[in-house]
């Protein structure tokens, strides 16, 4: 399922949504005394990495945390993630996970939506949750000075979420608007065409509908929260001016009343081949440009071909100005402001995909140019110099991915979600360096031939064959 923020101005509201049925207010079960007692035995393993010093520990409450202590700015970023997301919505109830995350900052305990939002402002903090196909995630940022109060509020959200009727009705109204606006959103239309062509029966192809939204209730969302947010699937990363001993009790306060575990349906992997492609597919949309997207079967993250593909992608279309597609279609021909390619390498779906926009009159030339580059690279491979350039950039630019607290917290979460290991950051450049010209050209020959790709064109394209 794919959700898009269709109301530019409402993006914040969508992210921050909430609810109204008041619940009896109770006191949290964990007392401060208990927490202090438990934190004494915290065992912290420190990984002295090249890019980050990662402290790993399990809280007394059983939560595994990766922390980078960074004292130079008085802020703390915390990321929480649980495997299981929108694709776990029961069939016919699409939008249920979205409803859950919408309400997580819309009232808790004796605070209604306005009360909760006001309290966040008083603490100068942010907290919100989101769902993707396979993950449910929450992020919080706070000032170190009042991190304890901020964490208390987040704990309330997990322990006594309200799912009130008011925010729920607002969620429904926003969904109704989205159902309309997505029908003229070029990116959404392209996504739908791809999903319907390649995996029409898979949960990833399901969309919200007026009917599915009508089946949702605050009670269903609240019950589903207890399935998505459970202790045994929780991953936590944090970066900021805080020690493990300070952070552990705060995390335990958050998870104190989450269910131990839950059953979610298995999501099957999408199995498709180049033979499933449909050539070129046009979705009409009245606008001056055509959005051209292309997609072909790809490679898993843990496949031996992954690093060669990753390096090759830089030369093909991932390397900004220095990629072959940008050089040909933008710099030489002036056909587009930008064209890119990327790899999707999840366990359930892999693709080599890309896209760009060009005026309707030149859509045919643009696609012809793409196919020509695909033929060239799949038949002729890349040069030693291109390979060296790709490696030099990919290795040399890696430190830029670690220059902010938010980036480090996100990088650590990706490594945890993909189960790459705490030393992944240190090993990654070696794996890039080890890629050979033969590796890259074998992958190019196997994956980048133009006949493997489906082309989706949204707009009023001219000159298509």
């Amino acid at each position, binding site marked *: 399922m794919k959700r898009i923020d269709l109301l530019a101005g409402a993006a914040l509201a969508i992210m921050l949504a909430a609810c109204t049925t008041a619940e009896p207010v109770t006191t949290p079960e964990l007392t401060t005394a208990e927490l202090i007692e438990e934190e004494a035995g915290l065992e912290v393993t420190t990984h002295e990495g090249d890019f980050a010093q990662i402290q790993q520990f399990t809280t007394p409450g059983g939560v595994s945390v990766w922390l980078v202590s960074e004292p*130079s700015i008085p802020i703390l970023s915390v990321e929480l993630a649980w495997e299981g997301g929108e694709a776990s919505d029961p069939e016919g109830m699409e939008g249920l996970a979205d409803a859950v995350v919408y309400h997580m900052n819309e009232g808790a305990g004796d605070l209604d939506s306005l009360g909760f939002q006001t309290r966040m402002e008083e603490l100068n903090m942010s907290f919100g949750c989101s769902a993707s196909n396979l993950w449910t995630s929450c992020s919080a940022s706070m000032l170190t000075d009042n991190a304890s109060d901020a964490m208390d509020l987040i704990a309330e959200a997990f322990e006594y979420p309200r799912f009130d009727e008011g925010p729920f009705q607002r969620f429904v109204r926003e969904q109704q608007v989205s159902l*309309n606006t997505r029908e003229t959103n070029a990116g959404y239309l392209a996504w739908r065409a791809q999903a319907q062509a390649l995996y029409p029966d898979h949960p990833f192809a399901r969309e919200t509908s007026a009917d599915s939204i009508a089946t949702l209730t605050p009670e269903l969302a609240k019950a589903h929260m207890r399935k998505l947010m459970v202790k045994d699937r929780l991953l936590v990363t944090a970066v900021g001016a805080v020690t493990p001993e300070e952070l552990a009790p705060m995390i335990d306060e958050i998870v104190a009343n989450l269910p131990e575990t839950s059953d979610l349906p298995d999501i099957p992997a999408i199995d498709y081949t180049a033979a499933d492609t449909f050539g070129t597919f046009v979705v009409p949309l009245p606008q001056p440009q055509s959005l051209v997207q292309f997609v072909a079967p790809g490679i898993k993250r843990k496949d031996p071909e992954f690093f060669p593909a990753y390096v090759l992608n830089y030369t093909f279309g991932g390397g900004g100005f*220095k990629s072959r597609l940008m050089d040909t279609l933008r710099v030489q021909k002036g056909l587009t402001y930008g064209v890119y390619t990327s790899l999707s390498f999840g366990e359930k779906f892999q693709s080599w995909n890309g896209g760009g926009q060009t005026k309707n009159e030149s859509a045919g030339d643009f696609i012809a140019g793409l196919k020509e580059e695909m033929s060239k690279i799949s038949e002729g491979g890349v040069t030693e110099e291109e390979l060296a350039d790709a490696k*030099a950039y990919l290795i040399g630019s890696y*430190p830029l991915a670690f220059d902010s607290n938010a980036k480090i917290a996100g990088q650590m979460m990706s490594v945890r979600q993909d189960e790459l290991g705490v030393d992944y950051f240190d090993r990654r450049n070696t794996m890039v360096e080890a890629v050979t010209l033969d590796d890259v050209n074998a992958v190019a020959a196997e994956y980048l031939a133009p006949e493997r790709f489906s082309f989706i064109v949204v707009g009023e394209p001219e000159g298509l064959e």
Partner: protein
Amino acid sequence: MKRILTGGLFALSAVLSTASADDTDWAPTTFSLDNGMVVVVVPDHRAPVVTHMVWYKVGAVDEASGKSGLAHLFEHIMFKETDDLGPGEFDDIVSRNGGVNNAFTSWDYTAYYERVAKQHLGTMMALEAERMTDLIINDDPEGPFISERDVVKEERRQRIDNNPGVILQEMVLSELWKGHPYEITVIGKMDEVAALTPEDGMAFYKEYYSPENAILVVAGDVTPEEVRVLAEEHYGRIKPTGTAHGNRKWESVPLLTETKELEYSDPKVRQPSWSRYYNGTSESRDREFSYALDVGLEVLGGGMTSRLYQSLVEEQNVAINVNTVAWTTLHDEGPVVINASPAPGVSLEDLETAAMTDLEAVLAEGFTDEEVERARNKLAASAIYARDSQSNMANVFGSTLALGGTVDDVLDYPDKIRAVTTEEALAAVRKVFGPDRHYIEAHLLPAEGDS
């Protein structure tokens, strides 16, 4: 994607950001080179990387009549070729050093940057110094200048012409700024861009690109002394052209003298939207008033807790969204915008009536001290959060100085925001929405016959 346009239609209100003035370990250092180039060093030692930026005090405001889009197209051309760097070689060298680079143009300034591991800072300076003095513009009528012009036309289609809401905003802003250099959007008019020539580019380069018209900002894992040595070596040797002048075409924006309504309908519009654009202010022209206005608009329509959101979205359920914002980070006065989108089944007329009734009621009734304090703290705290992004910090100092402001203007932001009183915030909002003020009203509508 590269060559991004800021200060353009979507620059809305880039919220200022910085840090509190009470700790000094991250406070920037400034000095000047003998040739007039100003240098700002912003320490951030968390990672061994730097953000290197060169800001030129030239933008779309400085274009001659009929040459709209020149400042921005020229910025693209700066990546092409120099005496010592062949076509594309600038990007090659940056990439091979593991750097990312880009540039952006606004009405008020043009900035070029590289982000790279700190040991390559000198190389980045050598590259920027080279294109400050030795740019080559190929005048082949089928050459790179012409294909880049086509790229910019595609950029305009992608940013503006594909998007009905942006098309309407372009119409509104050209009314609001009629007769002012901001009247034409930064990327320019399609037909004027199509007519720009390599000679236009070279004349623009000679008039504006010179060290005394530039500001160097280096943020990251460096000391001021390291930067001074490298800057002297690479930029210090450049002689001022003598032709660069500081005469910007900035002028104060006069108040609207009549109220207008603009409507734009398009088959792509599936959700109508209602806006009013009033005359506002800018930090450069009136910093105190600008801060008071920011605080007041935060209370009025800044987020979910704001007065308008609570009434229109939460209580009356007539809007799906509402907000108020001031564009204060341009040099000259930008608009104050109130924008709302109707809930399903609500007409724009009913939404407008509800919004304006609420607005007038809040202005009459006034703000509470508590809500003003929350708004102040939220804006002031944004300065602390902003420190997490090295490039953001470089941008804040660079843009402030390019507009004629000072490092202290940035450092003092949290304290000055916290000093705004309830009365000042209210007075600012009352002034911009005053009964004597005219405005441009904009309706974005589905095409006739569409649902």
